[in-house]
């Protein structure tokens, strides 16, 4: 029986900081967007104070001055490296690992008995924490949609202790589905919840019991797939679902193993452009770009290399040029000759709503004129590509220009990637 696990890092950015600053454990900690504009990641203690994602840093400065909370500038180089370490640990113990976002990874479990599976999931939970210092939750089930729910249960319900395995068709699975509201199901947005409520469908269990054909007629094929997935029939692939506005990923195998930088650059460029188009379609802006490459893990005879790198964007943007420029820079830094690459991809991270007006005040200023120009250009590009076929208008990957200067007053060290920023250990 093939099962899928979702390993999700707890309050990832804050956890990364806490590995190197143990004194921050148990304290309310937040990580700010570039330019220290607003809070983009919160520890549970900070959430408990009623502070939410997107809160302008200026509004809570008084709490910082009173030393009641701690705010840090975002340190994407550190988060990217820690994310990769988590992935490597998983790769050591599982045959296939697919990153879903910077802090979530899908893992395959094949051929385990239930008790064995539970033990294995517990081991992953402990190993990742011990090896990297990052606490995670593990959810395992027959499909990705159910694994998401299992992970949620592992995180929210203390009885699970961070690990939840849902055997297909079990009473436990049924009981959990009955308790989960539709809005918490992967890929079911707020609008859908309202429409489904009219039909009397309220819980994940209700949706699982609905007639898939009828759901398909009324709501389309995507929701039909969700119904099937809730029943334990896998039919959603990695690239299918992008969680409501949190991240966008485009990746694909190169078709053959290649070490040709030109070919790889072209693939990354396409993925970047495609991701940017999807970003604009859902009216979001991205704060950071992650690029990854992968050699073929099943070719034991070849050296393995699975690099990834996060580049922070100078400001939240949906401009293909800025996104491709960051992706190009990331690729240039991670590409090494001598490896045969199988796959590569581009992920857009920490998305926010483009409509949010306060943005211009909080983030690196971009003049209105400049923004409108960029918007017009992107509109024209999307229209032409929509009408005349994808790829009609392409952007080259510009070599990255001058370094971006940002105000990051509370930047922590890049402890794990820079010689001159290492963690200091005191011999007292």
């Amino acid at each position, binding site marked *: 029986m093939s099962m899928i696990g979702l390993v999700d890092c707890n309050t990832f950015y804050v956890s990364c900081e806490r590995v190197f600053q143990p004194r921050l454990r148990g304290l309310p900690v937040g990580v700010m967007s570039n330019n220290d504009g607003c809070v983009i990641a919160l520890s549970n203690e900070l959430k408990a104070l009623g502070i939410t994602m997107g809160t302008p840093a200026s509004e809570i400065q008084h709490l910082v001055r009173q030393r009641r909370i701690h705010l840090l500038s975002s340190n994407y180089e550190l988060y990217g490296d820690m994310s990769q370490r988590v992935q490597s640990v998983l*790769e050591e113990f599982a045959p296939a690992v697919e990153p879903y976002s910077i802090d979530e990874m899908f893992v395959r479990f094949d051929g385990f008995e239930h008790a*064995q599976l539970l033990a294995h999931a517990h*081991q992953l939970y402990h190993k990742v924490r011990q090896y990297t210092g990052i606490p995670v939750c593990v959810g395992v089930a027959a499909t990705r949609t159910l694994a998401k729910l299992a992970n949620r249960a592992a995180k929210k319900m203390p009885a699970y202790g961070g690990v939840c395995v849902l055997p297909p068709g079990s009473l436990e699975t049924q009981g959990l589905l009955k308790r989960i509201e539709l809005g918490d199901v992967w890929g079911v947005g707020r609008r859908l919840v309202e429409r489904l409520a009219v039909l009397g469908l309220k819980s994940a269990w209700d949706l699982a019991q609905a007639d898939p054909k009828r759901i398909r007629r009324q709501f389309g094929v995507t929701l039909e797939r969700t119904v099937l997935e809730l029943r334990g029939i896998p039919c959603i692939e990695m690239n299918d679902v992008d969680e409501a506005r949190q991240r966008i990923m485009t990746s694909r195998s190169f078709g053959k193993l290649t070490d040709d930088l030109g070919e790889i650059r072209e693939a990354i460029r396409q993925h970047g452009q495609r991701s940017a188009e999807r970003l604009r379609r859902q009216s979001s802006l991205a704060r950071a770009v992650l690029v990854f490459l992968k050699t073929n893990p099943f070719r034991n005879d070849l050296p393995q*290399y699975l690099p990834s790198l996060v580049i922070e964007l100078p400001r939240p943007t949906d401009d293909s040029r800025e996104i491709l420029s960051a992706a190009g820079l990331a690729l240039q830094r991670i590409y*090494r000759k001598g490896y045969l690459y199988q796959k590569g991809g581009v992920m857009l991270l920490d998305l926010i709503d483009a409509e949010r007006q306060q943005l211009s005040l909080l983030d690196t200023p971009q003049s209105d004129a400049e923004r409108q120009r960029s918007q017009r250009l992107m509109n024209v590009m999307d229209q032409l590509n929509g009408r005349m076929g994808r790829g009609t208008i392409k952007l080259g990957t510009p070599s990255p220009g001058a370094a971006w200067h940002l105000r990051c007053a509370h930047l922590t060290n890049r402890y794990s*990637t820079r010689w001159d920023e290492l963690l*200091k250990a005191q011999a*007292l």
Partner: protein
Amino acid sequence: MPSESLIPARPAPAPLALPFPLALGRAGLAGFPSPAQDYEGRTLDLNERFIKHPSSTFFLAVTGDSMVKLGIREKDTLIVDRSVDPRPGHIIVAMVEGEITIKRYELRDGVPCLCSGNPHYAPIPLLDLECQVWGVVRAVIHEYAV
């Protein structure tokens, strides 16, 4: 029966270059061999020798001089591996009152303790491994001015 320990899918992971490989650490013939080639026996790779487990290995910088007797001096670089389970006798990086410190893990009268190189500081009983131990020191790099 649930298996007690994980069986690695790839028992000996292929030596992976770290984010910043010690390129100059490769002694041997001039020129760099392609990593795709089997270079065993032709060059020596410091990563291979000291970084047994890349994903759990971190470098730390030493401050203070209390561990000199144990060969750890100010400004040395520690190679710390979090995947090693600490045993008495290990030099470890420990978290004490929110600070990152270097200690020796010892048994004092049968009680596990974190001991400082400085006799001035009393041994700290080791009660909770996960809360107190950050990682085990695998090696120390001491650079001379040349």
